[in-house]
């Protein structure tokens, strides 16, 4: 039973445009959400996070939106750059410590 889902395995975006990556979760006990970025042959790198008491968190070109009623979060990257091309993982934590990850979305930003 997958508690965190990323339904789009891949996304292609033109450089300079907005990238929107989506994530859905089923467990209402999750209280903290994160996005990680992963390049090949490297471990995931933390990007941005959001607490369940907020609905938006912004850091430079990256913004995460949380819709608790819909159990949905999204990551917006604007403007997208070719160096943003990577696999993006959504992850969640519930009253504990371990991360529950989605399956990932491969983002390709074309010059």
């Amino acid at each position, binding site marked *: 039973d997958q508690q965190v889902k990323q339904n789009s395995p891949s996304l292609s975006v033109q450089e300079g445009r907005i990238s929107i990556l989506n994530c859905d979760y089923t467990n209402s006990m999750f209280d903290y959400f994160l996005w990680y970025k992963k390049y090949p042959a490297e*471990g995931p790198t933390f990007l941005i996070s959001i607490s369940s008491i907020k609905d938006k968190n912004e850091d430079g070109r990256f913004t995460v939106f949380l819709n608790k009623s819909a159990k949905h979060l999204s990551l917006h990257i604007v403007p997208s750059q070719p160096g943003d091309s990577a696999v993006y993982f959504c*992850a969640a934590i519930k009253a504990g*410590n*371990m*991360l529950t990850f*989605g399956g990932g979305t491969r983002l390709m930003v074309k010059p």
Partner: protein
Amino acid sequence: GAGVSQTPSNKVTEKGKYVELRCDPISGHTALYWYRQSLGQGPEFLIYFQGTGAADDSGLPNDRFFAVRPEGSVSTLKIQRTERGDSAVYLCASSLTGSTDTQYFGPGTRLTVL
């Protein structure tokens, strides 16, 4: 400062053999996690250490898997009687104290069981 390091980066073994995977966390981080990532999937939690003790080992798939962290820093993940289905990238992460502290990941060990 130095990040999380994992050795070896690649390990090829034969079915039935025993393997050990090592993780060196960021200095001063008390929390350490092991995850496993199979091809095309997200990482899956295996075990979490707080200091020397395993605070949560609910993700270990069976009793062939075991992990230790005897001095509260370096951790070793041990897999007995390896099976082909154990082939995956094993990721280690550490965080300062646990909870929602950012988890910093190492590059992983790619295990291939022939």
